[in-house]
């Protein structure tokens, strides 16, 4: 108890210095926490992937289409429950800054395969019935103030022209991490237009989504589907939805690695700053530590006082940083909604923040504690102030 008292009083002896150190650690922890959350967010698409869904695309590249005729053949593969299909549309609303995902899908089978997109029954029926209909996620609707019945005009890039869709449904995500910033419309509507304007591009899809009866069959179904189209004009590559999403992430892995490195660098920098502060503090108190030694206090107790003070300061900074990370994450979620479906701080990130603060406090105290415990009493007493 006495040592807790002395280390707490020591911690706040130089209020300005301690406040600045705590502030520095708090900012570092906020930065670390937000960067870690960003890295986690990168993988959230893969994490939320269904175990009973496969994605089939052209074996050469996602850019190359597959014939629509594959659908019925895929359906016959043992273990396949449902098949849906779609194409990445890549249209632009207003201008490039207003980016959001938009793709053409076969509505009925798609919504059955993706129960996480929750629509009121009437809106779902209206979407399936109307070939010019589209649905959007709640966040996207909120962003642009769209209401049911609104006509949304999108400029095609892969499929040129001005495309008009009637908003028939606004879906909610079944989970917080479900994408709510996408627009889906009828693949048939796209195909009809292509038949008129670019017949060679008609009756082709970008990808198939396959629902399997049992997750254990997924690997075998993937092999069977790809074997079926072996040596055809459009060979397929079938993989789990998770692998498909991870493939996208792999394209941007350098960014993820860079973010991770920056998050660690932030912690190392604050560790050096805290170590310097602790070294300065311990040097100023050399005479006091020598006095304690003179009175019979052992090296362990003196090191405990120094480590305790350092850890108290860094943990206060760490906890403050964690508390401020949440409003920071909320701000990012609101302000950068077009980039992130949700920006949440996971419990793992909080634990890593606490661990980082603990490591900073401990490492910062190593050299000062070693110095204070190894200096001879006579030498320590000679130092004044």
């Amino acid at each position: 108890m006495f040592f807790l008292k002395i280390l707490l009083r020591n911690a706040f002896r130089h209020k300005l210095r301690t406040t600045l150190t705590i502030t520095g650690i708090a900012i570092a922890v906020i930065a670390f926490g937000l960067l870690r959350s960003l890295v986690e967010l990168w993988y959230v698409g893969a994490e939320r992937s269904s175990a009973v869904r496969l994605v089939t695309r052209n074996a050469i590249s996602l850019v190359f289409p597959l014939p629509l005729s594959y659908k019925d053949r895929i359906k016959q593969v043992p273990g396949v429950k449902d098949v849906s299909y779609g194409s990445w549309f890549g249209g632009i609303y207003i201008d490039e800054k207003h980016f959001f995902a938009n793709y053409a899908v076969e509505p009925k089978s798609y919504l059955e395969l993706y129960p996480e997109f929750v629509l009121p029954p009437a809106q779902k029926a209206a979407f399936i019935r109307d070939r010019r209909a589209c649905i959007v996620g709640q966040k996207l609707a909120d962003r642009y103030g769209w209401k049911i019945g609104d006509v949304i005009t999108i400029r095609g890039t892969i499929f040129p022209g001005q495309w008009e869709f009637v908003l028939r449904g606004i879906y909610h995500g079944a989970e917080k991490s479900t994408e709510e910033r996408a627009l889906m419309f009828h693949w048939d509507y796209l195909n009809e237009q292509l038949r008129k304007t670019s017949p060679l591009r008609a009756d082709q899809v970008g990808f198939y989504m396959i629902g399997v009866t049992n997750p254990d069959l997924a690997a075998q179904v993937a092999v069977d589907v790809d074997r079926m189209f072996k040596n055809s004009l459009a060979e397929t590559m079938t993989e789990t939805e998770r692998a498909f999403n991870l493939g996208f992430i792999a394209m941007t892995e350098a960014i993820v690695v860079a973010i991770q490195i920056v998050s660690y660098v932030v912690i190392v920098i604050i560790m050096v700053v805290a170590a310097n502060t602790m070294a300065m503090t311990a040097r100023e108190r050399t005479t006091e530590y020598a006095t304690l030694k003179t009175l019979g206090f052992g090296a362990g107790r003196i090191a405990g006082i120094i480590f305790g003070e350092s850890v108290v300061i860094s943990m206060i900074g760490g906890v403050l940083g964690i508390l401020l990370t949440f409003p920071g994450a909320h701000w990012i979620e609101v302000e950068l909604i077009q980039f992130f479906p949700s920006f949440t701080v996971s419990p793992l990130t909080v634990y890593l923040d606490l661990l980082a603060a603990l490591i900073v406090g401990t490492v910062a105290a190593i050299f000062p504690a070693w110095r204070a415990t190894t200096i001879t009493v006579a030498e320590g007493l000679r130092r004044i102030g």
Partner: protein
Amino acid sequence: MEKLRPPIVVIKDLNKSYRRGSQIIPVLSNITFDIDEGEFLALMGPSGSGKSTLLNLIAGLDKPDSGVIRIGGLDISALGEAELALWRASNVGFIFQFYNLIPVLTAFENIELPLLLTSLSKRERKEHVETALQVVNLTDRMDHYPAQLSGGQQQRVAIARAIVPDPTIIVADEPTGDLDKASAREILELMERLVHEMGKTIIMVTHDPRAAEKAHVVRNLEKGVLNNVLP
């Protein structure tokens, strides 16, 4: 008159030197003397004569190259660092020139410090500290921090801290060196009282002849040699 009790401090053939690079500098050479229980000894000598080194050796803060230092019958020159620390905690009271109080602790807490290493209960520690505060007449300042006390008062707190574990000896390194005349006189009178009324043994290093006047015995060190004994 024949002594009834053996001396509390026995120093025999004590040698100490320091190494500076490849050079060995002798500081103390063949020091031999005794200190009786209840004696007030002043060690005098010019700067660099080795008196602080001798005080550190007697207090168990440093170890001699050779020779014996026996205090209360125990040869402390044979003890290891950890044993010495434990021995110091209960056998030596320290009074420093610059008081060396811990600034974040109150007068009460500073005095309590040496007792934290004992098995005394919190209540017993409180009783001991209050007694020590009464001896130095600072009961009304027990909750003050060192920065809120004058130099003389801080030194009285340091004296209370030195006496609170009831040590075998008290060592004082220039206890009046940082004080004005009036405060120095108060401190010396207090130290005299410790010797006369409480039977404490004090070994004091000083440059101040007025401080030395209060001592029973004055020993003079010159170039590491104890060359005379003054009455």
